[in-house]
């Protein structure tokens, strides 16, 4: 997939994974890599970016005698998912147009 397209979709996929439940790095990789091939070196900057833009927050919780960093989606992150889903008809229109046909006439 085109890197730019992948980047845009991956952000929303990670947020979608978090909208089901709070999650941690490895779990996010497992959840998302079923849809798009993703590695930690892709995920890590992405999570930092999402955190910086206020789409998610982090907290630490004890697990198995150590602290694990969890990620939780914020209302702003939810808005981003909603925006993506709302833009979907436009994406489909673009897809149809690219495939070779305009359904408006």
């Amino acid at each position, binding site marked *: 997939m085109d*890197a730019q397209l992948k980047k845009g979709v991956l952000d929303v996929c990670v947020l979608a994974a978090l909208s089901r439940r709070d999650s941690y790095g*490895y779990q996010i990789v*497992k959840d998302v890599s079923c849809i798009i091939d993703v590695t930690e070196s892709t995920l*890590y900057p992405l999570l930092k970016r999402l955190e910086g833009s206020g789409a998610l927050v982090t907290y630490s919780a004890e697990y198995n005698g150590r602290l694990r*960093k969890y990620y939780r989606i914020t209302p702003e992150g939810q808005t981003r998912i909603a925006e993506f889903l709302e833009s979907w*008809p436009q994406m489909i229109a673009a897809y*149809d147009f690219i495939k070779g046909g305009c359904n408006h006439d």
Partner: protein
Amino acid sequence: MTKLEFLSRLQTYLTFMDIVERNQTLEFYAEQIDDRIDDGMTELQAIASLEAPEDIAANLQQMKLNVDALNTSTPPASPVVTQGPVVPSPVVASNDSRVLKTIFIVIVLLITSPIWGTILLTLIGFIIAFLCTLIGIMIANISIILSGLAVAISSTVQICTQGDGLAQLAYIGTLLASIGIILINIVLIYLIARLIGFLSRTGFKGVRHSFDRVRASRKMKKMQASKQQTAPSAPQTHAYNMTKPLVQPMPQTAVQTPVPLPCTDAPQEASILNKPLMIMERNRQIQVPHHHNASSDGQEVHHV
């Protein structure tokens, strides 16, 4: 490689980050290893399933460069966490880089002007001297012709006025000789004039030709650039890794391919190529059924 070895190797490659960022990154990777071990992997398996430290560093650096480039072109939506030393980015707007390149070339030309300036002046001097010599020879030729004419006239006068037959014969000789010299010099002038004409024409052509060549190469570059922009990108092993970073602080060692992670729901054998389609189709069914009905008249991809 143990967890400690992995982390210390990663640390050595993360020189482009500041200390806070580096520690956060190392913490993140330490947690990834711990999570894998908790998931049932051995320490070795956990590390083998991650990318190699140098690949991780290269990817993170590339990502950072992209972010920096974005931040320089558009104001950031939120305060950026930390900005390391500004590394020249390969993704800067091409206009900026062209201007920078021109400035650089001008500076280099100015600095090296004592060298190429003297060479250029010498060359110009040579050309002027050569032309002057040719013109000098031509002037000499003209004066020889004029003196030849004078000799011819005086000898004709002498032939007419002298009563002595022998002297008359001698003057006929000088007249013929002067006519010969005049003819030779006319031919010489003609040849030199042609030489000057040829030289100036070829010189002018050469200059024009080199200008044309520069223009043509510029056009070629432009065309190639636009082609590259439209050309489909090659398949990539690493997400986002569009170009390898210019600065490669790490030696290239054997590249480890991460072991595929166990999937939680979707079938593992579905190829990566099919995956985007899968999401598309899924969302499409749920989100916009009306659109699907409206446009289901033929050129549709059917649901998996």
